[in-house]
């Protein structure tokens, strides 16, 4: 394991978790601001774009940290789910059953992403601690 990159990855996952929670608040802001998907959602879109790139950047960090296969696959899954969020937003048609069902999953997928980012960070943290404990012995 590369401890430096593992620590960076740990902090990176905390940042992503924070941004994902903020993304929920920004979605709420858009609803409260105007209601329609155009007006108040600028910050939600900007943060969503940032999340796509920042989550994608977690994959090379997970590779460089050499903390096992799990963090690599989990960050790749997270980046794919963020991509899916963008895809759902693009093909959505407001005011139809299709759009409504799609955004039900958009919201649930966002919730799942918070849990995933948190658990991935906790996994890296535990592996770092396990390594520190093994070194102390």
């Amino acid at each position, binding site marked *: 394991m590369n401890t430096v990159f593992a620590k960076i990855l740990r902090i990176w996952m905390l940042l992503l978790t924070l941004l994902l929670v903020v993304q929920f608040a920004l979605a709420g*802001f858009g609803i*409260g601001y105007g209601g329609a998907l155009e007006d108040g959602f600028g910050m939600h879109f900007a943060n969503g774009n940032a999340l796509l790139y920042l989550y994608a950047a977690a994959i090379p960090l997970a590779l460089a940290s050499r903390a096992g296969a799990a963090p690599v696959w989990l960050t790749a899954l997270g980046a794919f789910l963020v991509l899916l969020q963008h895809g759902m937003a693009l093909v959505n048609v407001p005011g139809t059953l299709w759009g409504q069902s799609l955004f039900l999953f958009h919201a649930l997928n966002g919730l799942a992403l918070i849990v995933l980012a948190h658990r991935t960070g906790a996994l890296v943290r535990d592996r770092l601690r396990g390594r520190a404990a093994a070194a102390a012995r």
Partner: protein
Amino acid sequence: MKRFFLGWTRFVVLLLVLQVGLAGWGAVTEGEERVMRFIAHVGNGGMLMFWLMLSVVFALLARPGRKAVLLTVLSAVMIFMQGAFAYGFGDEGAGGGVGIALHALNGLGILAVQAAVARLAKRAVDVTRAPRVRAGSEVPA
């Protein structure tokens, strides 16, 4: 009763997750009044207020530990704040935006607190069950 409280809390967690999905459903529903666009979210939310009040009663009956009871009370208080955030900040503009932003964050908080209660309730069930299993396994040779 501890087992029932565990099952009940898991049911409430499930409904809270569904509530996030129903918020997404309402976000792309078209109509005049916000209450009517989010009617599924509002309906489920109103029921959740009642379920969490019941949770406080069940927690006091099941005695899953002081921490679990206090967290249940906290989530009941937080879900009453949801109504204030949704209706108290106006319908549009930056004020309304901040209100629903706080509503979303508080909702995530309720889900997190109830998930913690479910974990504590599981622990309370396991603690009461463990000695019985050990006593039953002491078979004389």
